[in-house]
Each structure stands twice: as C-alpha cells, then as structure tokens.
C-alpha cells in the first residue's frame, strides 16, 4: 500500500512541475470558460427574446440545467476526451525513456502497486480538471437556481468518465515508449468507445446490425454516451456506476499485463 502512495505522489509532483500539466489545466480552464460563457449568453438571449414575444409556455419550460449545464457538460466531455490522453501519455512511456522502468521492475514492489499508483496520480489530476468545470457551474448558483443534485449528478458523470479515460490512457502509455504514440493511441481508443453507440444506432437504422442483436447490445453496453446523458439528466443508476467501475478495471488489467510483458521481452 505505501508503495502505491509513494508512486502516486512522485508521479503527481512530476506532473505538476512539467509544462504538460499547466498547458492542460490552462487549456481546460480556457475552453470551459469559453463554452460556459457562450452557454450563459445564449440562454440570456433566448430568455430575453421569449419575454419580448410573450412565449409564456417556453419561459416556463426553459431552465438552467437543460439550457446551460446539459450542453456545457456535453462539451466538457469532448474536451476531456482530447485532454486526458495528454496527461496520461507519459505515465508509463516516460519510465521507459528515463530508464526508470528497470528501477521499478527490480524494486520490491508488485506490478499492481505500480499500476495503481500511476492510475491514482492520473485520476487525481483528472479530478482537478473536473473541479475547474465544477467551479464554473458554481458560478451559476450565484446568479440563478439550477437544480443542485442534477448538477452534482452531471459533474459525477464527468468525473467517472474522466477516470475511465485515465485508465484507457494509462494502457495506451504502457504499450509504447513514445509519448506521442501513446497520446494518439489513447485518443483513437476513446473516439472508438465514444462512437460505438452512434455506430450501433446507425447500423440499426440502416439495417446492417439488428437493433436488438447481440452485437448492437455489446456496442451499446461499451459506449458511455447514453449513461453520461442519463447522469446529466440527473439519473444516477447503479448499473451505470458499475459500468464505469468495469471499464476502469478492464483497462487496468490490460495495463498490468502490458507492463508485466516488459519482463518477457
């Protein structure tokens, strides 16, 4: 156990002295701020227009959660999809370049301690990003009255999504010594996971894949999009929580196997 905290602590302190962490945090804050502001301004414009035209039905229906936070979380998801590979690309790849892989694999630590330490460091950093998003949604509470638990549910969705992305990114970093390859591999894996539900829908629509066929079921299961949208709407389902736990575990097992394989080369 203490190895895990030592490894995670070292990884985090290295992350925070590297430009990667600051570039990622700054980009995320800028993008989050931009999309948040755009969402709020467009909400404001819509309300003003509806008021001037006396659309009372519309005014009753429109709310901050649907009109601002939903789209905001949706965009933050895509931003995370591109930024998380940036923070995970170095997790294992840099150890190979530094020659420290030999130090780690000849130290009295287990591969699981190494993998979990690295994962926790990435997960803590991802949580910092989600905290930035939470900061912007917090602003909304100062000037309006979005539903509290629905907002928390959306943020939780964002957090779980980012944690599963860290696991995918850690795996990508463990298969190569080149950080750029790790970045693009993680990105491609995440895009595939993201598109699975879309592909299943398209296939169902085109008749290539039966809407209730096994393949379609599996693709829908593996895709996070429906689950995330449910959480943004405020529905926290244990099955969806289990899904994220499943995805994280699967990619950590892949990572462990991949790190261990260094011994057999």
């Amino acid at each position, binding site marked *: 156990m*203490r*190895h895990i905290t*030592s*490894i995670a602590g*070292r990884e985090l*302190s*290295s992350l925070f*002295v*590297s430009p990667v962490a600051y570039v990622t945090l700054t980009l995320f804050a800028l993008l989050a701020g931009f999309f948040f502001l755009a969402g709020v301004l467009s909400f404001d414009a819509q309300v003003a227009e509806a008021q001037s035209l006396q659309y009372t039905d519309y005014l009753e229906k429109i709310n901050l959660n649907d009109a601002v936070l939903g789209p905001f979380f949706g965009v933050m998801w895509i931003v995370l999809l591109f930024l998380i590979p940036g923070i995970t690309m170095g997790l294992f790849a840099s150890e190979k370049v*530094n*020659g*420290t*892989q*030999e*130090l*780690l*694999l*000849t*130290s*009295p*630590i*287990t591969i699981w301690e190494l993998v979990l330490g690295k994962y926790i460091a990435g997960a803590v950093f991802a949580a910092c990003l989600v905290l930035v998003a939470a900061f912007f949604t917090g602003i909304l509470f100062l000037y309006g009255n979005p539903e509290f638990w629905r907002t928390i549910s959306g943020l939780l969705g964002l957090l779980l999504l980012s944690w599963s992305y860290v696991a995918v990114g850690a795996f990508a970093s463990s298969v190569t010594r080149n950080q750029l390859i790790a970045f693009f591999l993680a990105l491609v894996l995440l895009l595939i996971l993201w598109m699975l539900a879309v592909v299943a829908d398209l296939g169902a629509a085109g008749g290539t894949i039966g809407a209730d066929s096994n393949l379609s079921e599996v693709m829908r299961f593996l895709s996070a999009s429906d689950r995330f949208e449910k959480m943004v709407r405020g529905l926290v389902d244990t099955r969806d929580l289990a899904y994220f736990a499943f995805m994280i575990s699967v990619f950590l097992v892949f990572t462990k196997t991949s790190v261990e394989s260094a*011994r*057999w*080369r």
Partner: protein
Amino acid sequence: MSDGAESSESVKADSSRIEARGISKRYGDFTAVEGVSFDVGEGEVVGFLGPNGAGKTTTMRILTGFIPPTEGSAQIAGYDLFSSPLEARRSIGYLPESPPIYPEMSVRSYLVYVSKLKDLPRARRKEAVDKALERCGLTHVQSRVIGLLSKGYRQRVGLAQAIVHEPPVLVLDEPTVGLDPIQISEIRQLIADLARPGEHGGQSVILSTHILAEVEAICRRVLIINEGTLVLDAQLTALAQEGQRLEDVFTRAAQGESIALGREVGK
C-alpha cells in the same frame, strides 16, 4: 554445467550472496545466455567481462529480477528470485547500463523516493540518503534538478540509487562509463569501501566493465562470458601466479578459445 555448479557450491556454501544455477535465456532461436552458474561470496568484488553482446547485461538483468531466465534459478542473499521475488529484490542494488533518473526531480528527492521503493524504514531514510549522497560525492548538488546535471553526476546519481538502501548485493552495469579519470578513481574507491567488512558486513559487488585495468584495480575475481557461456571464473591472483595477463586471457576468450587456467568453468 552441473559439474561447475557443484564444485562452486562446495567452495562457499554458507557465505554466498549470489547463487546463479544454470541460467539460460533464449529469445526464439537466439540464445543470449546459456547455462551460466557461479557464486559470489560476502564482501567479494567480481569483475564481469565479455565482448559486447556476450550476454553480460542479460545475465545482470536476470540476477536483478528484471527479466526471468528461460532456464535455471538464482538466489540473492538466500532468497530465491522466483519463489520470493520481493525479498530477493529488496536485497539488491542495481545500476543499469543507462542510469535510471527522473530528469525533473532533485537529487535528494529522487533518493528519498528510491529508499521508499526499496522498503527502507522511515526512521533510517534521512540518514541513509545523507550517507549515499556523501559517498557518491553528491552532497553539494543534492537540491539540484537531475536533468541539469552533467553526465558524470547523473552516473553518480545512478550509483547512489543503487546503494541508498545498503543492500547486501550490488549489481553494477558499467559503473564508471562517462566519468573523468578523477571521478573513476573515486568510484573505484567507493566500490572497494562498500565491499570492506563493516556495520552491514561487506557488500557483494558484481560489476561489468570494458576497462580491464578497472578489474585489476578493484576486483579479486573475474568472470568472463563469451557468446552467452561463462568461459572463465578465476581469482586474479591465480592468473598472476600462472603468469597470465588479463588482457591476453580476455582476448583469447573473446576469440572463443577455451581457457585452461585458474578455476575453469565446468572442470
């Protein structure tokens, strides 16, 4: 090979810190190391020689538990590398060919981190790190970032991480590469000090090098490996008695000649 193993077992059964038994490593059809057996006793400094590609690094990687052998077994400080890997690895300090360093860390914080990885008790950590810094001549650069240090200092940082937890066994892959002559003699002095019996008993050192003078300066015993097999395991004094120069022995070994002197392997 089994003959060699038995004879060396009878030589030092009690005090041996490294026991390699018939270690082989094959990659598909390619044999990197074939049936290597030897023992290293307490406080012994053994020079590990061989031409490039002879299997030195592979053997060292196997002994440190970095890669498993295809065949054979090894014990480090009495612990089997394969049935109790954590205990065995705790007993080893390893300086790989390229020193493992985190360029963004300071020298001191790196050594503290390594001492945690190697399970050094918290109470002994500060003292052990100070001692390793001092022994490797790093005290005055301890708060500098490793990536900004010269190659010689990085090599010393690599050595410091190998000795910080005062392991009974040290495996050093070309420890003096990239150092200037003064640094080389300092490091040789340090290795000799490590092996001298002291509070922890003499540390056993196996070091690979291409500098034959280095072996003559600090080792009492030499192992020569060629094309994956051990061709010589002899005390330097035995070589001297027979009037053999290490350089000639090495050249003949590298040419694949079997060597008939000292304690020959498999005799």
